[in-house]
């Protein structure tokens, strides 16, 4: 790791922020992936 900022472990507050940030982008992505899988299965069933 090259950065000072990332060498010290994140404070508990920041851990919540990290979790929130990943949920923020993860939920829509999971929705997109779910729709994709639904459509892709048509290749084997359609």
């Amino acid at each position, binding site marked *: *790791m*090259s*950065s*000072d*900022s*990332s060498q*010290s*472990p*994140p*404070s508990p507050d*920041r851990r919540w*922020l*990290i979790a929130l*940030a*990943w949920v*923020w*982008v993860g939920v*829509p*992505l999971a*929705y*997109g*992936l779910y*729709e*994709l*899988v639904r*459509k*892709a*299965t*048509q*290749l*084997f*069933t*359609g």
Partner: protein
Amino acid sequence: MSPPVAPPGWSRWLVPPAALSVHLSIGQAYAWSVFKPPLESALGLSGTQSALPFQLGIVMLGLSAAFGGTLVERNGPRWAMTVALICFSSGFLLSALGASLEQYWLIVLGYGFVGGIGLGIGYISPVSTLIKWFPDRPGMATGIAIMGFGGGALIASPWSAQMLESFGGDSTGIALAFLVHGLSYAVFMLLGVLLVRVPRHVPGAGGTARQAPTGPQVSAKQAIRTPQFWLLWLVLCMNVTAGIGILEKAAPMITDFFADTSTPVSVTAAAGFVALLSAANMAGRIGWSSTSDLIGRKNIYRVYLGVGSLMYALIALFGDSSKPLFILCALVILSFYGGGFATVPAYLKDLFGTYQVGAIHGRLLTAWSTAGVLGPLIVNWIADRQEEAGRHGASLYGLSFVIMIGLLVVGFVANELVRPVDPRHHVPAPKEAARVERQQSESA
């Protein structure tokens, strides 16, 4: 605007979601086709006309990435993400106004021109910052962001379709859908603007001359004067052309290939095949790009281009005799297509350093614009000529595949010719720079 420097204890794992919030939004561009049928019926447009906002958007993406890269480096990622948010979001708002007034030129101007600037600046906005935060895993870091661009269409496509179904496909419904898109994306991208930070001890992360990163550093202006830049340009262009060649005509291609067999492919199954290709494209972005951190950038491009041409050869020779083989080869090719996009920023970093890697990446994206024209042109033109000559089925695509193999071989050779950049192109170290400056002022 000075770049936002990370406070002590700031985690670098906050930067990828910041980048994703921008890339997942601007990736919506590839779901534009959802708006085409309602626009055509509501405003009486032809297919060519309804494609115009998307086409202008992609042109503006290339131009703004190429010409705005230096500004992004100078002003930092928060500035770039703010510009991307304002442009992309107001592009939708202008389009909403255009749809409600039934003034199509406003949609072209809004989504295509203004929104397109947001696409280009947004695409390159996190690249340089991610590489600086993850010098140990630059391929993985940029892979996450660029995977987001692919993911954006996966989210927007069903979301926009559902919205149009709820609001209706008339001009009022379309206007309302554009309005909701503009506002939602503004809120979603705001996370990136608020979270993005440059690492503390790389003071030049915003592009100032004070930075002291390790390894050779080359400015964007100087990079385009090196053979390495143009060789990589060729590598990217060939790899993308080969991928688009399949992506562009995936549905009719699989239908044509197995039309004369005992197991023809239905329209629904062909749509499933296209979806599977999108998944391979996305998986390749994160998977292959992360692998490049382990085996090296030159080696991974050897795989993309070498194995890619082998996959095309397998499809051309045996594709119509085995459906699983056809599908497998197409999936591998598409994963290499995505991987090629996602690995290139790390390759640029290896060759030119982190000094202005975002700006250099922006200039390299003109290869994407070129491939975006070349790939579909080759496959469509040849398929049309073959059809006119009375051919059908797999033989419509044979010649296209041979051309794709040739292009991949050209890319492979270009990759082999890539060598470290000559030190005369490097940015002088601070002390050396001061000495050169002094000498120049004395001799002036």
